[in-house]
């Protein structure tokens, strides 16, 4: 019932993308997402898609996995497409009763679709190629400067990795409790919403009690093994930048430069490419 809970859907493979420092991947994905939001013209998207395609080629993850994430947002995608197509005003291309489809509407819908796809696929690639542990390590290192403002960076990172470690244990426990309560006549599959919510109480209460007990045990075990906060800790796998990481940063910088350039110049390029009344204007 709860077996399919899987966070951090890591796909084990041996590729350059897998070996990249998690910080590079985090910064890269973030910049990439920002670039998709700031500039929305076809040239920028073309360059962005090109970059994504080359990363996809390099990362040795089956394409199906990368697009899996899209299923979750399928509804949102349909929603945006429908809204943009039917409710954007502009040059009417087609009209039927109250329905009117404009050129701008179609353009917006297509751009949104492309943007969402690129966003989701890029985020999927990051989680598919980075273990949750490396991800938290990367976050810890990246946010280290916040320590100056007394932010508990190390603690939050440790909490995240412990949470990830306990997800399968707690989901197994949930399973056990569900079975135990079902055996005693509890029903978890009522059709009525209120009853269904109520039926969760005999599940949640024991789960919380046990989670707290585990937390207290774990704290004791950590203390017994000499844990005393992030001060003076070393790492089994410290994050260290290597040649490929610097190369990736350079590629990233180039990408940003190209995107910014295209973003600013797009109007002129469009004007240059499309003489008045050309059919091509539909695309821009």
């Amino acid at each position, binding site marked *: 019932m709860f077996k399919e809970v899987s966070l951090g859907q890591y796909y084990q493979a041996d590729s350059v993308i897998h070996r990249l420092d998690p910080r590079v991947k985090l910064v890269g994905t973030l910049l990439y997402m920002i670039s998709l939001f700031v500039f929305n013209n076809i040239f920028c998207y073309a360059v962005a898609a090109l970059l994504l395609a080359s990363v996809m080629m390099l990362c040795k993850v089956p394409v199906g996995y990368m697009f899996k994430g899209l299923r979750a947002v399928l509804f949102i995608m349909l929603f945006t497409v429908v809204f943009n197509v039917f409710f954007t005003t502009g040059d009417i291309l087609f009209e039927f009763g109250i329905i009117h489809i404009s050129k701008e509407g179609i353009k917006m819908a297509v751009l949104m679709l492309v943007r969402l796809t690129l966003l989701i696929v890029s985020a999927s690639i990051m989680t598919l190629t980075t273990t949750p542990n490396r991800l938290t390590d990367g976050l810890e290192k990246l946010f280290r400067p916040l320590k100056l403002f007394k932010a508990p960076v190390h603690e939050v990172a440790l909490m995240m990795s412990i949470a990830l470690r306990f997800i399968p244990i707690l989901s197994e426990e949930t399973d056990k409790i569900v079975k135990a309560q079902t055996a005693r006549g509890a029903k978890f599959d009522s059709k009525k919403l209120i009853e269904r919510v109520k039926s969760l109480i005999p599940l949640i209460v024991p789960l919380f009690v046990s989670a707290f007990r585990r937390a207290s045990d774990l704290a004791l075990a950590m203390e017994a*093994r000499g844990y005393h906060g992030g001060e003076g800790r070393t790492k*089994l796998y410290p994050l260290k930048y290597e040649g490929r990481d610097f190369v990736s940063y350079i590629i990233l910088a180039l990408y940003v430069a190209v995107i910014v350039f295209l973003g600013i110049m797009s109007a002129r390029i469009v004007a240059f490419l499309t003489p008045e009344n050309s059919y091509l204007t539909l695309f821009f």
Partner: protein
Amino acid sequence: MKIIKAEKVTFEYIRRDEEGNVEGINRAVDNVSLDVKEGDFISILGANGSGKSTFAKHLNSILLPTEGTVWVDGMDTKDEEKINKIRQTAGMVFQNPDNQIIGQVVDEDVAFGPENMGIPTEEIKERVEEALKTVGMYEFIKRSPNSLSGGQKQRVSIAGVLAMHPKCIVLDEPTAMLDPTGRKEVIRALRALNEVEGITIILITHYMEETVYSDKIFVMHKGSIAMEGTPREVFSRVDELKEYKLEVPQITLLAHTLRQRGLRIPECVLTVKELTDAIKNC
């Protein structure tokens, strides 16, 4: 050389009601004194609520005695400054294997202790490999702890303590949640550690079978030490052990019953082989 020395240790839990007023005092450990020689295999036996786990937590400075003193390798556990050194000298393994594994991969978990000690990366790697080899878990180095059996998880926990290079390991009912195979695995690993590496083992348990090979047994009852001696000395007092709600190993019990029925069998029998030999000689 005494690795652990406890002198008149008393520990009290204070029960409070909802307003925080003192409702009563539970004396979990009552005037316990014991010495442990370096390199020994010591067992502390006791039924539920005998105070054995509470006492164990004193050996690694998790709990501090209300009265009395505990010395670990000459260091007073009350000494705040030495706390890290004490925890490194006397490592501790707990009952529930799931609740003491921190890492998501076996090697990362074993590295947790050395990481806390600030050991350089290269050396951590060596220690992790060495510790996992010692407990026979090296082939699982890259596995997720969730995919291991209970006994294997417990061996990983032991490796996690070993990687800190302790002189002494305290195990608080490490086998209580394991199946018989897992129990055997853990006990075998502990004996090897004791015999090959010379590490002092303090095993806290209520399974008497596990204590057969120890150098010395302490039996705790209601917070104090009720019996102490070699396994042979302790197990020969079958009726007394029953009073403390402990069950002697089946083979010892059988020999004891046979003896009561008039068979000429020596006072205390610990293994099947001893009993068969004794019966043959009858």
